[in-house]
């Protein structure tokens, strides 16, 4: 028993068995998080480095919490710490960290392929917390855990992912992970925010939100990066909200137990109306709780052992 993968670089190519094992283990860690003492001594003495080249408070805190709840010792290297911002090369940073004898690295970086690059630099276990436009596997895992928790299954469900698909590594990891688990995914956004070549994602692509939402069991809204407005990718926030935002009216056409999800942070009133974000269908806060459980499961399953 145990995972067949040695690192978590992405969900593309990860087997159904491995994903199921992570989700099952996460369910058990969820129980730990309900206890009064939300900690287990399993990873005592194991050091995990959180190497965050991109600013991200919520993901880093989620990982840090997961590490602490497992009694591991987290070390944070972020862009604000001296050597990372002084232009030290990635390879040298990695060598220095390794010289301090750490077991596992959780890395987030703006360039795709960095986690894979690190597996060539070091013997430590690597967990991808988001690399460029490529993948964000723990996010997709916590999304699937939440869906399974609320709807009881994954196979056969239809998921609509709506928003800036082009720049979204969350959309990619979900597309690949959910396809493996037998779910049907539809990616939706304005043509300027969809990849020019979509085939590798293996999902249905549409620019019509009506088509995407039709019969959806889960609607996952993506954050619109407002800075992109100036670069000609979409004309105005008003038009974007009208065509691709989720409000109560659009929500009312969906099945009674549809789930509304969002990886956060939310632009309230733009891609997601406040009353939907806070409404009964929203499982956004469950996603956050499950994030810690999923990350505990991933760290637990990948760590330890005589190089399993």
């Amino acid at each position, binding site marked *: 028993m145990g995972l067949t993968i040695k690192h978590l670089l992405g969900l593309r190519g990860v087997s159904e068995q491995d994903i199921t094992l992570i989700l099952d283990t996460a369910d058990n860690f969820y129980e730990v998080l309900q206890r009064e003492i939300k900690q287990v001594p399993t990873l005592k003495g194991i050091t995990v480095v959180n190497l965050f080249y991109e600013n991200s408070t919520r993901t880093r805190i989620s990982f840090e919490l997961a590490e602490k709840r497992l009694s591991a010792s987290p070390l944070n290297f972020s862009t604000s710490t001296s050597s990372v911002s002084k232009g030290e090369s990635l390879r040298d940073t990695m060598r220095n960290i390794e010289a301090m004898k750490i077991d596992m690295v959780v890395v987030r970086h703006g360039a795709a392929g960095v986690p894979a690059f690190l597996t060539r630099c070091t013997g430590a276990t690597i967990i991808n917390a988001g690399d460029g436009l490529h993948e964000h596997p723990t996010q997709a895992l916590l999304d699937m855990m939440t869906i399974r928790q609320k709807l009881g299954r994954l196979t056969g469900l239809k998921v609509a992912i709506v928003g800036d698909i082009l720049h979204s590594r969350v959309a990619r990891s979900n597309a690949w992970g959910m396809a493996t688990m037998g779910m049907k995914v539809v990616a939706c956004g304005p043509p300027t925010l969809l990849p020019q070549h979509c085939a*590798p994602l293996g999902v249905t692509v549409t620019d019509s939100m009506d088509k995407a939402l039709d019969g959806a069991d889960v609607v996952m809204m993506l954050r619109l990066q407002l800075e992109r407005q100036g670069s000609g990718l979409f004309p105005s926030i008003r038009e974007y909200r009208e065509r691709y935002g989720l409000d109560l009216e659009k929500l009312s056409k969906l099945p009674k137990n549809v789930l509304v999800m969002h990886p956060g942070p939310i632009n309230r009133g733009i891609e997601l109306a406040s009353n939907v974000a806070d409404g009964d269908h929203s499982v956004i806060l469950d996603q956050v709780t499950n994030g810690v459980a999923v990350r505990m499961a991933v760290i637990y399953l990948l760590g330890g052992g005589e190089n399993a």
Partner: protein
Amino acid sequence: MLKKPNGQTIYRPIDGACPQKLIIKNGRVIDPANGVDDVCAVGVENGLITLCAKEVPPDFGAQEELDASGMWVVPGLMDMHVHLREPGREDKETIETGTLAACAGGFTAVACMPNTNPVLDEESKIRYVVQRAQNSVCRVYPVGSITKGLLGEELSPFGEMVRAGARAVSDDGKSVRKADIMKNALNYSKSFRIPVICHCEDSDLARGGHMNEGAMSTLLGVWGMPSVAEEVVVARDIMLAAYTGARVHIAHVSTAGSVRLVRDAKKLGVQVTCETCPHYIALTDDDLAAYDTNRKMNPPLRTRLDQEALLAGLADGTIDVIASDHAPHVSEEKDVEFDAAAFGVIGLETSLAIVLTYLIEKDVLLPSELVEKMSLMPNRILGLPGGTLSKGSVADITVIDPNARWTVDSSTFYSKGRNTPFNGFDLHGFARYTILSGNIVYERKDP
């Protein structure tokens, strides 16, 4: 003498003329300029070719004999697109190490690009390169820049650069952004009968890209440069050439659309020539799955469909030249995450073998067409007398062993660069001898 462990040896030419009488026997002489493709003997005296015949006259009196049985004897190869990095980045390559690499690759001449530091944008800079290359084992012809400092605003002084030895102008590394400046450059080049070599890339369309925009870039999550970023400027430069009546040479063609544009333009009589590179012939963007920075260059590796169009363009003559775009980098600039890695791969020491393995062995090109594209046409386009084995011409000769089998090991290269996309590849063929002015300057023994 510079020996390498894999049996390569470079001999520095002695000052002055070559004293030998040399005869090259039993080789298949391939000289398309003179319509020759036959087993002949080639005789060299005082650095010039004096004989090319089936039989060697008994009184020739050669002091040295080269037995080229099983090998091809061709006019010295020329790579018309290399980056020698000197002046400015001697850590990446120097004129000396670059010419050694060229010689080992079978080249007797190269044309080097002006994106050095300082840029080769006036007489003294061109002169510097010419002087530094004086005693090299390979001839070096500088290409001057189109605009001062490569800034795309003011024209460089073409006349004085040509006088100092420049054979063409180019802003290679980027395009001339402003179409009116490009038009002026084309018009001005007519006075000097030089081609304008165009690096075609629309910087707005390509901005932020690190590889070809396609299914692969979606898969890898890397921002892409669409093929159309190259094609819109190819179209522009061809149309400006047609309008002004000037000569353009499109550098490193990589897309199907570019091939089509050049083909159509040639049909209309536009004075356009173009080149492609060995890496586009052998690899596609599928080969980037492991984010290997030794496969990152600009223009980037494109799709299989683009590659097929390049092969068709080579076969039907649309593509005139194969050049390497040899671009050495130090490991600090390559051994980093993909997005941060510099663009460029080396090629001088693998070009010939790649062409032999992927084009000759696969019957895409005939041996005579290889000689055209790697010797005759580069010389013609740059207005040089080389590229033939005509009697009386300077004895720059390459003897190719097309049957040799070898594995690429970048640690044995003469180039300072190690950024080859082909490390570990099993290839067919190499230059066994490189002969410059009748001197055997390079010899390769199998280890």
